[in-house]
C-alpha cells in the first residue's frame, strides 16, 4: 500500500491503481467521458484532468497511476479551470439543443455542462455537422452530437468481441463509423447505447417514446438465458418502454445482451391474449376466466385419475420456481408422474446440470475446455467472460460444430460434427489416463478407449489441461440435445475427475437449474416419453409446441390423441391449434417469481408492470386451477409462500441417473446441426420486432467442402427432409460449419419443422 493525498485527505491505496479509481472508491467526483471502468483507458476526452503537486501540467486521472506521496487536487482552481476549458472545447461543436435530444435528461455531457460549462459560448464560427449512419435496427445515430470518446469503439472490440465500429478520418473530421454503413452485429451491441455519454447513440426502438424523467425504474431478472442478468425495466403508463442493465459484478457486470435489452418489444405483441380462449369449430372464442376454469374442471374431472399417468404435464424451462412447484404439486394430486420441462433434450441425466462453479470463478482457471457450445448465441453475455479469459490467458480450447470463435484466442479449435464429440473426449480421456493413475471400472468405457487413437489436437489439449494449475471443462447445453449426450457428459466427467478439474454444464434456460433442483424431471420420465404414451389430457405451459420442442410432429400427434389439451401461454399462434383451452398467462415482467441461474444463485423478482389485459401470473393461474379442481393444499396468498414450500423440495436428493456408457452407433451421411440463434430462443424474443428487422432470408448453411462433395452450389434451392418434415430452402456456403452437416436454424421459420432429428437427406430442387 502507498500513501497519497487527495483533496487534503490522506489515503492508503493499492499501487498501480489510477487516480480516478481511487477517487471513485472514496466518492470523490471527477468528471469523465471517455473513461469507463470496464474498458481500456483512452485518456482522450481530457475531462478528468486534475492538478497534481509538482507537476506543471494537469494529468488525466484515468490514466495516471498513483505514486507514493502524490498530492492530488480535484477541486482546486487550476483543476476547475482546466476542466472548464475542456468543457468549452467539447461544446463548441456540440449542438446545444438538449430539449430535442433523446438523451436529454440523462446525458453525461448535459449534466457535466451544467456543472462546468459557461452560460454563454465564445465560439461564433461554423459548427461541425456529421452525417448520420445506419448501423442497424437497434441503435440510432446522431453523430453531430458525438464527442469522439470512443467508448463504443472500445466496447465492441474489447467486450463485444469484434471491432465493428471505428473512428474514421482524423482531427476534427474524425467520426464514428462502421465499415460502410454495415449493421453492428454483436449480440451485445445495445450496451453502446448505455456507454455513449451523449445523445450520439440512442436506442432506436425506444427513440422519442418517453423522456427519462417520466419513467419508473423497476428491477427484475432477465428470463432469456441461464445467466440471470439483473435488469431494470423502465415503465411508463404500465408499459415497459425499455430495459437497461442493473449492475451486478458477479453476474452480468454492467452489461446485458441485446435480447435481454430489446425483448420487451415482444411483451405487447399482437399475439398476446387478454382473455381465456376456447376452441370452437377451429376458431378461438374469448371466454371469461370463470367459464374457462369450469370447462377445464369438467374435462379433468372426467378422467379416471385412479389410473396413474393419465395426464401429461410439460412446461418450459423458463417457468419460475413457483410455477414449477405448483405444477408438480398438481401432478401429484392428479396422480401423474408424467411431468417434465426438458423440451430440446434427448439425453436426460440429471446430475451436474449446472455451471459447477461461480460465474465469476470461470476466469480464475488456468486452462478451459469447452465442448459443444455455440457460446455467442447460447449465452451471449457469458460468452464475453470466456472470450476475455481466452484472449487474456491464451489457454482456451473448444470442440464444437460451428466456428463462432474468430475473435477468441483458441489454443485448439476443433470444429466437428456433434457425433464426433464423444470420440475426441475419449481421446482426451485416454491421453489423461496415460499421464495419471486414473482408473475406470466400466468395461464399456475401457472397450471404447481401446479403439481410439489420440490425435495431436487431443494430445495438446490434454497436455495443457494437465500442465495448468486449475482447469475446467464446460459442456454446452446442446450436448443434452444429442442422442449420445449422456455418453459425452459421462466421459467429460471422468476426465474432470481424473485431472481434478471443475466440471460444468452451461444450462440453457432461465430456470433450467431451478426446475432440475426441484426434481421436476423424474427418473426415466422425459418429455419424449410423456408425449409418446397416449394421454387423456395435457397441460402445457409457457412454450410454443412447434418451435420450442424438438419434434413438432410428435407433440402434435400427442395433442391429437388426447381428449383434452390445456395451454397456459402469454401468446397464441397457429402452433396452438391442438389445444382446447388457452389460459392467458403473463410473461416474466408481469409476475413475481424466482429463477435459479447457472451458478445456482436464487434470484426472486417482482412484476414490473401489472398484467396485460386480463392475463394472470402463472402461479395464480395454477393456484386457482387447483382450487377449481378441489385439490388440497393450494391456499397460497403470495408467490413468496409458494417459494417457501418449493425450497423444501430442494432438500430431497437429486438422484444420479448417469450410469452406463452406451457405445454410440457409427453414423454416416449428413447430420443436422441445429443453430439456435440468440434472438430465436423463446416466445418473447422471437416476437421482439427490432431484433428481427435485419432478418436474413431463411436458408441452411453448409461448408463449401461439403457442398462440393454433394454437388451443391451457393444460393441453390434444395429440399431437406428429416423424419419430421420436408422443406424447400436456399443453401448458403459457410465455412464456419463443420463438414458433413447441414446447419439449420432451430426455433425459426419453416426450418423449425425439421425438428432436431440428427439425420437428414437433401435433394436438389
Amino acid at each position, binding site marked *: 500500500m502507498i500513501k497519497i493525498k487527495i483533496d487534503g485527505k490522506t489515503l492508503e491505496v493499492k499501487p498501480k491503481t489510477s487516480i480516478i479509481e481511487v477517487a471513485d472508491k472514496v466518492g470523490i467526483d471527477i468528471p469523465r467521458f471517455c473513461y469507463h471502468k470496464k474498458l481500456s483507458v483512452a485518456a*482522450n476526452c481530457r475531462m478528468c484532468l486534475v492538478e497534481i503537486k509538482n507537476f506543471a501540467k494537469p494529468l488525466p486521472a484515468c490514466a495516471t497511476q498513483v505514486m507514493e506521496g502524490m498530492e492530488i487536487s480535484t477541486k482546486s482552481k487550476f483543476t476547475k479551470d482546466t476542466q472548464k476549458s475542456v468543457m*468549452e*472545447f467539447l461544446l463548441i461543436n456540440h449542438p446545444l439543443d438538449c430539449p430535442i435530444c433523446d438523451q436529454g435528461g440523462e446525458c453525461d455531457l448535459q449534466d457535466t455542462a451544467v456543472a462546468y460549462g459557461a452560460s454563454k459560448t465564445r465560439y461564433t464560427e461554423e459548427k461541425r455537422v456529421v452525417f448520420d449512419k445506419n448501423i442497424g435496427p437497434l441503435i440510432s445515430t446522431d453523430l453531430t452530437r458525438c464527442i469522439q470518446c470512443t467508448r463504443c469503439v472500445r466496447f465492441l472490440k474489447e467486450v463485444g468481441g469484434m471491432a465493428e465500429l471505428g473512428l474514421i478520418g482524423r482531427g476534427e473530421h474524425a467520426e464514428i463509423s462502421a465499415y460502410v454503413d454495415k449493421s453492428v452485429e454483436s449480440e451485445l451491441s445495445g450496451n453502446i447505447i448505455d456507454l455513449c455519454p451523449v445523445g450520439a447513440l440512442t436506442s432506436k426502438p425506444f427513440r422519442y417514446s418517453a423522456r427519462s424523467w417520466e419513467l419508473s425504474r423497476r428491477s427484475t431478472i432477465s428470463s432469456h438465458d441461464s445467466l440471470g442478468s439483473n435488469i431494470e425495466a423502465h415503465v411508463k403508463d404500465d408499459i415497459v418502454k425499455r430495459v437497461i442493465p442493473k449492475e451486478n459484478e458477479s453476474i452480468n457486470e454492467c452489461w446485458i445482451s441485446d435480447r435481454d435489452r430489446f425483448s420487451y418489444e415482444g411483451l405487447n405483441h399482437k399475439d398476446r391474449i387478454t382473455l381465456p380462449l376456447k376452441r370452437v369449430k377451429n376458431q378461438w372464442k374469448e371466454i371469461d376466466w370463470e367459464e374457462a376454469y369450469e370447462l377445464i374442471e369438467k374435462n379433468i374431472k372426467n378422467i379416471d385419475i385412479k389410473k396413474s399417468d393419465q395426464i401429461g404435464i410439460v412446461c418450459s424451462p423458463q417457468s419460475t420456481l413457483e410455477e414449477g412447484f405448483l405444477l408438480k404439486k398438481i401432478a401429484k394430486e392428479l396422480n401423474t408422474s408424467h411431468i417434465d420441462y426438458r423440451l430440446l433434450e434427448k439425453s436426460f441425466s440429471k446430475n451436474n446440470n449446472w455451471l459447477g462453479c461461480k460465474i465469476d470463478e470461470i476466469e480464475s482457471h488456468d486452462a478451459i475446455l469447452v465442448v459443444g457450445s455455440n457460446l455467442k448465441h447460447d449465452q451471449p453475455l457469458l460468452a464475453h467472460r470466456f472470450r476475455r479469459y481466452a484472449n487474456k490467458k491464451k489457454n482456451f480450447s473448444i470442440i464444437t460444430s460451428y466456428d463462432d470463435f474468430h475473435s477468441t484466442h483458441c489454443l485448439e479449435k476443433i470444429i466437428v460434427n456433434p457425433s464426433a464429440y464423444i470420440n475426441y473426449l475419449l481421446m482426451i480421456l485416454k491421453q489423461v489416463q496415460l499421464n495419471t493413475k486414473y482408473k475406470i471400472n466400466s468395461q464399456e468405457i475401457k472397450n471404447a478407449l481401446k479403439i481410439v487413437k489420440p490425435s495431436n489436437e487431443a494430445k495438446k489439449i490434454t497436455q495443457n489441461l494437465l500442465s495448468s494449475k486449475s482447469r475446467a471443462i464446460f459442456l454446452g447445453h446442446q450436448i443434452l440435445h444429442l442422442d449420445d449426450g449422456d455418453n459425452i457428459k459421462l466421459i467429460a466427467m471422468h476426465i474432470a475427475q481424473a485431472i481434478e478439474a471443475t466440471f460444468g454444464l452451461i444450462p440453457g434456460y432461465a430456470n433450467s437449474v431451478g426446475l432440475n433442483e426441484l426434481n421436476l424431471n423424474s427418473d426415466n420420465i422425459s418429455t419424449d416419453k410423456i408425449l409418446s404414451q397416449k394421454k387423456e389430457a395435457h397441460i402445457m405451459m409457457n412454450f410454443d409446441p412447434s418451435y420450442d420442442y424438438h419434434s413438432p410432429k410428435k407433440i402434435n400427434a400427442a395433442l391429437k390423441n388426447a381428449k383434452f389439451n390445456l395451454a397456459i401461454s402469454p401468446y397464441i399462434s397457429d402452433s396452438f391449434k391442438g389445444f382446447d383451452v388457452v389460459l392467458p398467462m403473463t410473461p416474466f415482467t408481469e409476475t413475481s417469481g424466482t429463477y435459479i441461474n447457472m451458478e445456482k444463485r436464487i434470484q426472486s423478482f417482482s412484476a414490473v408492470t401489472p398484467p396485460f389485459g386480463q392475463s394472470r401470473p402463472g402461479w395464480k393461474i395454477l393456484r386457482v386451477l387447483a382450487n377449481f379442481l378441489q385439490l388440497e393444499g393450494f391456499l397460497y396468498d403470495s408467490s413468496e409462500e409458494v417459494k417457501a414450500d418449493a425450497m423444501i423440495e430442494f432438500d430431497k436428493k437429486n438422484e444420479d441417473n448417469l450410469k452406463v456408457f452406451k457405445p454410440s452407433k457409427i453414423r454416416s451421411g449428413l447430420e443436422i446441426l441445429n443453430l439456435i440463434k440468440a434472438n430465436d430462443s423463446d416466445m418473447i424474443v422471437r416476437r421482439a420486432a427490432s431484433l428481427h428487422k435485419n432478418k436474413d432470408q431463411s436458408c441452411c448453411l453448409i461448408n463449401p467442402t461439403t457442398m462440393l462433395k454433394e454437388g451443391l452450389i451457393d444460393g441453390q434451392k434444395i429440399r431437406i427432409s428429416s423424419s419430421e418434415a420436408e422443406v424447400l430452402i436456399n443453401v448458403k456456403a459457410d465455412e464456419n460449419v463443420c463438414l458433413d452437416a447441414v446447419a439449420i436454424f432451430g426455433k425459426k421459420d419453416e426450418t423449425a419443422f425439421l425438428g432436431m432429428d440428427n439425420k437428414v437427406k437433401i435433394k436438389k430442387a
Partner: protein
Amino acid sequence: MLNNKSHNASKGSEVFPICLRTSNLENSSSLQTYLSIGGYQQIQRILKEKISPEKLIEEIKISGLRGRGGAGFPTGIKWSFIPNDSAGTKYIVCNSDEGEPGTFKDREIIKKNPHQLIEGMTIAAYIMGAQVGYNYIHGEIWEEYESFEKALAEAKKANFLGKSICGLGFDFELHAFHGYGAYICGEETALIESIEGKKGQPRFKPPFPATYGIYGRPTNVNNTETYATIPWIMQNGGESFANIGVENSGGTKIFSVSGHIERPGNYEIPMGMPFKTLLELSGGVWKGRKLKAVIPGGPSTPVLPAAEIMETTLDYDSLKNSGSSVGAGSLIVMDETTCMVSTLKRLSYFFYEESCGQCTPCREGTGWVYRVIKRIVDGKGKPEDIDLLLDVSKKISGRTICALGDAAAVPVLSFIKHFKDEFKYFIKNGKSMMDANS
C-alpha cells in the same frame, strides 16, 4: 579509450559534415563510397572487441549527443533506459518521418549517406540488445524510401545486416517502413501505432516505448540524424564530438534553411555557430531584402524577430534563452515583405489539418484557432479575437496526450507576442499591413 583524435575546427566558422560527410562524393549513397571513408568499421570493431554496451553508452554520454528530432533528450541516457537483459524481441526504430514544416535533413541523410544510418542503427541495436529495426520514412519522400530499400539490400548482401553480421555472431534485421501522409506519425508513439498497422494516434505515456513499444515490446525510437552520428562518435570518441560544439550542445547539427533565403539547403555546422554566420553561409536573405523573422526549429518552436535571432547562436541553451528552441533545426527565414497574419493562418491550418483528433482540446481547439485567424484574414476580424486566440491556444497547450497540442499553440502565442501590431492592423483595416506598405 576509443580513438581520441582531436578536432581543431575553429568553432562556429564552417560547415562540419558528419552525417552528410559523403555528400560531395560521387555515388555518395553507395556502399562502396561509405566503405571508402571507413564505413562499417565501427560495428565490426565493436563486435570483434566485444565492447560492452555500458562502455559504449558511456562514450555517447561523453559526446553530449542529444536527440536531433526536436526534443533534444540526451541520447546516452535514453539508451540506458532500455532493459538490456530482458528476454524476447526488442526493437530499434529510426524516426525519418520528417513532417515538421521546414525540416528536410533526414531526407538528405537517407538519400546521400544511408549506410552511415544503417551502421548507426546497428550499433544502437547492439547496445540495446535489439534484434529488429525499422526506419519509418515520411511517405512523401518516396524516392528516398525506395533508395533506402536498395541500401538495405546492399548491406544485407554484404552481411552488414542480417544473421551474424560480418560473421561476428550478432543478428540484426532492419526494414524500411513508409508512412503515407500523417505529420503526427513523427510523434514516437503514433509512429509505433503506425508500424502496428493502425491510425497514428499517440499513446498515453507512461508506459514509455522503452518498456512498451512496438507490439508491447521494449523499443527505442530516435531521429535519423541521431543514429547517423553514432558511427562517427564511435570512430572519433565522444570527447571529440563534444569538443566540436559548445557546452550542453555537443557536436554538429544539421540546420535546414528554407524560406526567403538565397541558398536553401542543409548545413551541418558545429553547434554554437552564430545565426549570422549561417545566414551568410546560406547566401543571406533572398532578393537582397531585409530579414524580418526566423522560426528556428520548425513551427513548433517560437518565431524570433530579426533583431533577436541575429544575436543568437545556434545551440540548445542560447536559443532557449532567446525564448525559442533548436527543435529539429529547421530555420524558416522570412523577409520584410512577409505578412505574419497570413503566415500564421497557414501554420494554424497545418495543425488543424494534422491533429489526429484524439484529444478534445487539440481536435476542437485547432479548428477554432484556424477559423478565427481565417476570419481575420478574410477581413472580418474583431478586436477581441486577439485575446480569444491567446486564451484558446493556452487552453490547448499542456492538455493533450502528445505535444501536437503544445506545438499548435506555439506559433499563435509567439506570432502575436512579437507582431501584435500587425494583427491589430489587420483586424482594424481588414487588410494586411504589408499590403498597406506596398
